[in-house]
């Protein structure tokens, strides 16, 4: 039903495929990043090891590197002589997933790290004195208190992956249903001078991203006013 609705809005079947692919990629990337990012962010928030600074820098790297650089190195790494060569990840959804996870890593890890750090020591020490073991403490104190951080991390990670282009361009291979994501579809339309379709896709993506970001900021504002 949604399909027909979108078609009425002017979306071609190939582009709808790109849309679902993009949403799937963003959702899966965000989910995996939350799972992987939680222990990493926890460690970063609480460790006093000397490794902290270099790891922080590595996590932040995708923020400043041009996506094409990332894509280029991934292309080489996934090639037959590269460290990931055996996994045949180039031009696959799996390869995009890996690329997206690296690309959006700081957008998920940094809000989580900040949320964990903001909790401080005392609630955790309190919980320990009240009988909560480490796993219990994490579940019943850290997670609820870090919830805003999780929301921010999830929305930012999702929205950021939606807009991913440079990395996908380098390692995707533009395969419909597998690696032809929305940003690639828009690019292709523009290159082929098909501005009508480019408009439909671009406007849709713009709207979607705006709504997602609006979500975060409304919830932050509501919390601050104590509602």
């Amino acid at each position: 039903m949604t399909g027909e609705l979108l078609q009425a809005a002017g979306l071609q079947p190939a582009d709808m495929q790109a849309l679902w692919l993009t949403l799937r990629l963003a959702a899966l990337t965000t989910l995996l990043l939350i799972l992987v990012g939680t222990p990493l962010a926890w460690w970063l928030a609480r460790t006093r090891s000397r490794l902290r600074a270099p790891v922080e820098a590595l996590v932040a790297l995708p923020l400043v590197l041009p996506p094409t650089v990332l894509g280029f190195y991934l292309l080489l790494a996934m090639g037959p002589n590269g460290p990931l060569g055996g996994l045949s990840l180039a031009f696959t959804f799996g390869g995009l997933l890996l690329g997206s996870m690296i690309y959006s890593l700081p957008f998920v890890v940094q809000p989580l790290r900040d949320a964990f750090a903001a909790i401080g020591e005392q609630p955790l020490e309190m919980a320990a004195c009240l009988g909560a073991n480490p796993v219990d403490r994490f579940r019943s104190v850290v997670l609820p208190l870090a919830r805003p951080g999780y929301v921010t991390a999830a929305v930012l990670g999702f929205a950021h992956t939606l807009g991913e282009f440079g990395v996908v361009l380098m390692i995707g291979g533009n395969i419909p249903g597998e690696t032809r994501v929305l940003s690639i579809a828009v690019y292709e339309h523009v290159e082929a001078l098909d501005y009508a379709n480019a408009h439909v896709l671009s406007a849709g993506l713009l709207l979607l991203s705006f709504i997602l970001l609006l979500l975060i900021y409304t919830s932050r504002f509501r919390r601050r006013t104590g509602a």
Partner: protein
Amino acid sequence: MTVKVDMHLDKGGFRLECAFESPPSGFTAVFGPSGCGKTTLLRAIAGLEPEARGLVKVGADSWQDANGCLPTHRRPVGYVFQHPSMFSHLDVHANLRFGMRRRRSSDAALDFDLVVELLGLSDLLRRHAPGLSGGERQRVAIAQALLSNPRLLLMDEPLAALDQASRSVLLPYLDDIQRQLAIPVLYVSHALDEVARLTDHLVLMRDGRVVTSGGINELLTRLDLPMAHGRNAEAVLHAAVRAHDTRDELTELTFSGGHLWVPRVDAVPGAGVRLRIRARDVSLALQPLSGTSILNSFPVVVAEIDDDGPSQVMVRLQAGDQTLLARVTRRSQRLLAIEPGKHLHAQIKSVALLA
């Protein structure tokens, strides 16, 4: 349950080496100047200082010794932090239930309603942290710790972070707990009046070490210790209610050294009371005075004298089996020929009833 502690800790240049034993019930004060390691000691007993080594034994249970060390969450300890803290994502009721659901000792637990009543939280159960004052949050923290059924309650200067008004509201609650609780409590403070009011036993600390420990009044009146030389030097006495005078609204108290009159209290004859008498409120005379507004006067024997500044001395006095302090000028000492063994009369300007 006797609490036996022997802790060693090296933390960033500060060394803690403490050994003491505290009586099985009642409040034991851990007293000393800021920075002497009181909080660190308490944290080490709770297991919150991973580098601490030594012995912590509560009753028959060893929480830490040469063979092993229980992690904090397995020690049946209650801890009240200096900064009032509640879990901000839970309301008061849920905060109280947090420890209840994770009880570590199989002793008979305190009743929920009893504790709520004791700390005056009945109207606050559905509230959240941001809507509560510092004093209210501290009461929640205390109740929370009590409801987790601890074998030892640790309180780290619970009143220090509160303003004067909140403190005076909270002290009576602590009085009630002190009276009704059977669990031993270690109460850290640098405020002498709190310590005098609430505790029976005192552990005196300085520079990470225990200087001495003993009964509260014994240590308060020892002239070789700093407490007897502060501005608020005082003694704690125990007396019993004898009778009430309804015409003048006074209550008569008796103790082994004599009688005392205080403004009428709500207690039955025979009930025990705790009194504080400040050194600066005690004056001395060779004879009992007449024609004076001071009601309270009784014979005392001088036990010891020590310097207390350029122009004053501190005198330790014995009245029956109780000890008190008086601060007088050197001139008076000379004029009255005050020396150990001398019989004098003490006039008490003001007696504060503590509980």
